[in-house]
């Protein structure tokens, strides 16, 4: 299937943004999201593509601030808020889409608590769609929602993952075997937060292997970098 021109441009914008986030995670550079909004896309109004890219990457856009590598930048927060408002989940949105949207609002609240109760992150979506699902599907869905794999977060999704460390580890192995590096990196990021992951998995070497094999894709590099930071944080 051929990608449309817009889809190709969006993929490129997401990868550029992921590259910036990786750079911020590694070196503490600021993202300057607001500047990217002024870039005019040839087909739409200024900033549309950049906003869509922010929505696709989700709360990971703010990961450098969440992990306190850089202080939250008010302009960046404003851009993320704009992306959240621009792409609300539709009535028939998938659970992963709902969770990702909720997580963006949740992250904004975490980094920029309001003076009053006017803004909330809304009701947390349920995790019932993961009850009793095969480990293959569980891992796939968690990997899609890898930006929610953060320390000290206690959502229904996190609890669902915590119940099944061996199954997520199996999914990691499956993703590596299939050379689905993005899924492997996302699953690996969840595994850094879970107790009960079998030692024989070799997670540390596995993450490096995923970075070596798939790290040319900045989205993969971002998840591996996040996983390694979470792992280092957990070890402290």
């Amino acid at each position: 299937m051929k990608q449309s021109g817009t889809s190709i441009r969006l993929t490129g914008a997401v990868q550029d943004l992921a590259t910036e986030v990786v750079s911020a995670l590694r070196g503490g550079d600021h993202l300057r999201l607001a500047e990217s909004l002024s870039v005019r896309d040839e087909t739409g109004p200024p900033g549309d593509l950049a906003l869509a890219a922010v929505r696709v990457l989700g709360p990971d856009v703010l990961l450098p601030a969440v992990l306190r590598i850089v202080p939250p930048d008010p302009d960046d927060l404003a851009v993320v808020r704009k992306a959240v408002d621009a792409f609300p989940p539709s009535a028939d949105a998938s659970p992963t889409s709902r969770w990702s949207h909720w997580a963006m609002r949740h992250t904004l609240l975490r980094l920029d608590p309001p003076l009053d109760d006017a803004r909330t992150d809304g009701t947390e979506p349920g995790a019932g769609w993961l009850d009793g699902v095969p480990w293959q599907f569980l891992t796939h869905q968690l990997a899609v929602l890898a930006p929610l794999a953060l320390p000290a977060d206690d959502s229904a999704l996190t609890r669902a993952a915590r119940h099944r460390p061996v199954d997520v580890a199996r999914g990691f192995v499956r993703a590596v075997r299939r050379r689905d590096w993005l899924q492997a990196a996302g699953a690996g990021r969840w595994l850094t937060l879970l107790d009960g992951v079998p030692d024989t998995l070799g997670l540390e070497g596995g993450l490096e292997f995923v970075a070596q094999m798939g790290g040319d894709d900045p989205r993969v590099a971002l998840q591996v970098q996040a996983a390694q930071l979470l792992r280092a944080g957990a070890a402290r």
Partner: protein
Amino acid sequence: MTSTRLIHKVGVGAIEWLYAHRDGFRLEPDVDPEVGFLERFKPVGELALICKVLFREGVAGSHQSHLARELLDHAWQHTLAGGRMLVRGQRTEPISPIPFEVYLPFRELGYSQPELERAARLNHRLLGYAAFEMTPVRRLGLSAFQRRFGLPPQPPEAELVGRTWLGRTPEPWTVEGHIAYAITHTVFHLTDWGERPEGLPPPVADYLATWLPVWLDDWLDLQRWDLLGELLVVDACLPRPTLDERAWEGFAAAQRSDGAMPALRTMPRGEPEEVFDVIYHPTLVAAFASVMATSRALTQLAHAPA
């Protein structure tokens, strides 16, 4: 839970195909020495090993057992010429372990060839035999066969487990096709081809219980039926077999109506002998997996609350 009937039927079909194509088990006495006379012995030894499992587990029907016994007699009397071909193979390559490895399951089933036994005992005393270069899993198998023959295994199996890939319980995502066969054969040797599941050291059994589901999933989707069948045997050798429903249904669906099991994806084309050489092994493995899994399913049934 996987239907025991489905599992059992795979083995019935496989033995029927093997019996109908028994002439495919053939040696080539006039083969080019560069190829080696012993190359064609392996299928005969594998046939004997699997038939032994079938008799031992006692879950085959009387017709299936009868066909297996006929197959064995055919292999011993006709293919091996009453064991004389094993002696000839031994004289062709005196230090090769292959004639001994092929002979052992026949001996356990009551066939005898004293001259080969004398050669096996002499080889066992030779440093050159102990030093014969082979992979750790093959060495493990040879030691297990020495024990079964009544000789002190050299070296003891306990010393060898840790040298195999499986014995070191490596990162499960580093497995690939050849490694997977080393894994299955390590399990076969440690359990005496499924007879003693307790022969698996507990860390190895735990490791397999954790990661085998991933490998089953993987090789099912790749339609590598030969390897999938061996992995289904491994499952049946674990303390708590899963009798993985998706894997068994895929495996059974790959089998042809005449009982033949393709090795990879679909049936190969070619001359009958060429086709036999490609699919005899997955079909034998299908019989092996079926007998082991049927036996374990019946054990589970016997222990289930009424």
